[in-house]
């Protein structure tokens, strides 16, 4: 993109609809360019998805000054989704005008030591206050950004569910490329770790919060017989060292358990009719498997089969375009999906689909949907032009 800005607004509903902009991380460009790209509309909320290549602190500081008056939330990514689909080394911004959006952002920190009851109360109060202040904006959803290495997503989402009630939540775990070293969040110029930012948004635009995956569970099951839940580490499966057993079941050599293999063979947990993806981050040299979601002994893991991701995505978006096309889809997409697309060499195709459907967002270390933390999904919100604005 060469540092150029690419506003992707539709002409219609200019000023009321979310706006997006992006810059490539380099010396010549900075937040002011991003701001110019977003236009001069009075903004309520600005979301920044920042490549780990960028100086996160610097960007947070600049953004809070450039968008004074608006709430700025930002996180580091495992890759960005910009106006052209998958991207790397960019800062992607989604901005929400005050005219049709109102928001409130709660800092939840430190995640390692949260009192559920008081946090639930905070959430409820924040919701009520926003509802009072912006009662005229009838649609509501919650957007969560969380430290992707905190391993507290399951607890937090379960906790937040009590506070959010019927407000649909989606979110993503901040990423650090494929390094898994350090992820950051920023609220204004305040940069945080071991934290989450819950932003509750009310809007006059119709919204639809969704979650999709393209996996089908198989009958091939495994039982976790030994695990360390705090570290999401599974030591034994079927009373055998986990990595070896997993490799045996896949019919491969344990040494071949790299990221692309792991991405290609996702594991799901079935609960009733539904299944939930529990992705494996990596295999340790102790034949342990490190998961990207909560896991415990006695869990029954099913091997899942992948369908064609691009077709599946196309189908899902077609459904989201009914009855009208959204003006923006803010999405949290699992890093493993991008890995899979790369592996299958359908990334350009996926990027095309994403661009066609105005998807903005980032690649995550995990997705939050309603009260659950899952992996290897795409979750997000589709934002539609107001009904009265539709020709």
């Amino acid at each position, binding site marked *: 993109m060469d540092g150029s800005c690419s506003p992707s607004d539709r002409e219609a509903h200019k000023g009321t609809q979310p706006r997006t902009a992006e810059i490539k991380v380099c010396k010549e460009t900075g937040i002011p360019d991003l701001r110019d790209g977003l236009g001069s509309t009075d903004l309520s909320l600005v979301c920044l998805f920042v490549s780990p290549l960028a100086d996160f602190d610097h960007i947070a500081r600049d953004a809070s000054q450039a968008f004074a008056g608006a709430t700025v939330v930002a996180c580091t990514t495992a890759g960005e989704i910009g106006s052209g689909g998958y991207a790397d080394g960019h800062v992607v911004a989604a901005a929400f005008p005050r005219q049709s959006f109102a928001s409130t952002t709660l800092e939840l920190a430190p995640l390692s030591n949260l009192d559920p009851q008081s946090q639930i109360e905070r959430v409820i109060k924040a919701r009520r206050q926003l509802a009072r202040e912006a009662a005229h904006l009838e649609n509501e959803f919650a957007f969560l950004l969380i430290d992707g290495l905190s391993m507290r997503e399951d*607890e937090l989402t379960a906790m937040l569910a009590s506070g959010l*009630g*019927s407000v649909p939540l989606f979110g993503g775990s901040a990423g650090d490329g494929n390094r898994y070293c350090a992820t950051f969040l920023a609220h204004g110029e305040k940069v945080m770790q071991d934290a989450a930012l819950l932003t509750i948004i009310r809007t006059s635009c119709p919204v639809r919060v969704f979650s999709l995956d393209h996996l089908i569970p198989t009958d091939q099951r495994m039982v976790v*017989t030994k695990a360390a839940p705090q570290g999401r580490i599974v030591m034994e499966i079927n009373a055998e060292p986990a990595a070896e057993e997993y490799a045996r079941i896949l019919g491969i050599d344990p040494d071949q358990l790299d990221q692309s293999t792991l991405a290609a063979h996702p594991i799901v*947990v079935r609960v009733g009719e539904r299944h939930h993806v529990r992705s494996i981050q990596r295999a340790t040299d102790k034949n342990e498997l490190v998961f990207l979601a909560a896991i415990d002994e006695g869990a029954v893991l099913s091997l899942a089969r992948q369908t064609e991701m691009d077709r599946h995505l196309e189908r899902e978006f077609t459904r989201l375009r009914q009855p009208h096309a959204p003006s923006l889809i803010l999405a949290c997409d699992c890093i493993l999906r991008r890995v899979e697309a790369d592996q299958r060499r359908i990334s350009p195709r996926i990027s095309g689909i994403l661009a066609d459907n105005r998807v903005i967002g980032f690649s995550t270390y995990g997705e939050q949907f309603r*009260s659950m*933390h899952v992996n290897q999904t795409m979750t997000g919100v589709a934002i539609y032009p107001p009904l009265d604005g539709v020709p």
Partner: protein
Amino acid sequence: MSILNPDDSLERQNEKLLQISAALMRRVEQDTDRSGLAYVQFERAAALEEEVRARTQDLEHTLDLLHQSNSQLAEANAATERARADLTDAIETISEGFALFSPQDTLVLSNSRFCQHMRDVTQDLQPGLAFTDYVAKVSQSRFLALPVDQRPSDWAEKRLRRHRDKSVMFNVRLTQDRWLQVSEHRTGNGGTVILQTDITDIMRVERQERSRLIDRQARMVRATLDHLNQGVCIFDRHARLAGWNRRVSNLLSLPARRFQVGAGFSQILDRLPQDIQFEHGVSRSDLLAWVNRQSDRPPLSFEIRRGDSLTLSVFCQEMPEHGFVISFTDVTSERAAARALFEANELLEQRVLDRTLDLEDALAAAERANASKSRFVAAASHDLLQPLSAAKLYVSALNGPTRSELDREIIFKAESALASVEQIIDALLDISRLEAGKASFDVAPVPLMDVLTPLQSEMEPLARAKGLDFRIVSCSGIVETDAAFLRRILRNLISNAIRYTDQGRVLVGVRQKAHTLRVEVWDTGPGIAEADQDVIFQEFSRLNARASASEGMGLGLAIVERACARLGHPLGLWSEIGKGSGFFVSLPRANQTREQPTVEAPRSGEGILEQTGLIVLLVDNDLEFRRALGLLMERWGVSVLDVDDGESALELLEDIQICPDALLIDHHLDGDLTGVQLLKILQDRHPGLPAAIVSANRSSLLRQECQMADVPLLNKPIDPRQLTTFLAQAAEEAVGLQP
């Protein structure tokens, strides 16, 4: 791929299965420590997500509603609290005692002023107190001042009865002379509001006012009663004396101590002196009966008398509330005066009646006498005329050429005497006819000269015989009258004048007025004293005793007076002893002949002068000129008095008391006076009299003299136009002076 590795030994497989099943069992039992919570939460979230979502939504909705209700409830509670506080504040601010009872008749709230003067009740005034208990407590309060004959229970019963009324308002008396006005008002839901207003001050002020008013009124009534010239007693409905004044004890001769408040009427009636008589048909018992009627008494009025010394008019009248008042008015003097007046009137009427009868008798007698006299005179006169005519015939038969001079003289005298007798008889007949009203008049327009000219020639010889200057100034006027009677009137006046004038002159002139012509007969006779001026018009009265048959018997003026009265011609007289007399008869102008003269009529010409009746004194020594000028002016309707010198002019004016309207004087006169000198004398006597000097002398000396005398000079020969101009001016002034 099997869950077990087929390559393992059975033991190993068995061991693994045991481990697997143990892990599963732990999982199922959720026997996990704190570290496994995250996965449990995930499991639960996954299992219950949908259900929890739905429940949560419901719960949230319910919570919302609850919140809403709670906040509404809180608001309502706050509003209620505020309202209650406001109400409490409000009822505290009002100055009345205020209490609200619920529809169930229990006390809801009251302010601190409610029952504040009943300290033994206030402590019980708590919400929930029943109305009946409240009334009972009040009735037993030692601060309630009950009437002597009322027990607390009676009061309470009465009070509760009042409570059932729709609206209640009554006053309550408390001890220490305090008063409360209590009113009840029903609220919309059937509750009761009781208001207590402290009206102590109002009651006290009112009571003071009332007693002050009563005192003042009583004093005023007392003063009024004492002020009255009437005696007044006031009795109440029980016929007991309630008030009286001092006068009443004087009038009734009752000692003042007998009048006591409460004394009964009959008691007082009994004490009245026995010599008091009731009159006008009302007796003592009637009065007692009137009093005993007790109500609806009609006003009663009568008089009482005590001998002749006192008469009282008594008036009894009922008052409101069936008391009555009796007033006594002393009418003694009025009654006495009325009696005297009545008696005097009767006497007077009798005398008037008597006198009227006398007068009627006298009048009847006089009328009879007068009628018989008139009849007698008429009869006698008529009867006398027959033998008189015979006598005249005989006497004329005696006369003849054969008679001697002496005989002839005797015969002449006899004839003359007979003629006088005939004249007297004619006069008597005239008078009797005039008096009897039987004379008939033939009133018609008569030219005055038609009457005067014959008289001139008839009287001329008589005047000449007495050496008198007799003159009639001619006049062209026409009058409305009876010609025969006018002639008789004037002849009598002229002959009288000639008869009584021994020397000097007799002048007859006519003065023209707007609507009348006045014929004036002037003489230079002896004059008539004012006292005699009425007498001369009576029959047979003559002032000079030397009346002879030939000179009449004094019937002339009697005929003149009666004839003038009958014709409606005013008769006037001017006379002065030693100077002479003038008789004036005013005659109406005959208006059909000529237009009335008006000031606006054309000034020039003779026409004007004809109607003015101007009298001009012409003094000139030239007889021819005098005649000619006199003739000219008479043609113009001007009367001319002409004399030949100044002395004669002065004498004439002196004699006849006539003031001419203008003077025309020749400067050259025969006597001692010049014309201008004469003019000055005359103008001194009659200032402003128009005059002109006439002269043939054209010297500037005369002109200067005339200028200095401010008199016009007419040169001879006279220019008639100049003369008419002068006369017209004179006429204008004359009319101005004598309208």
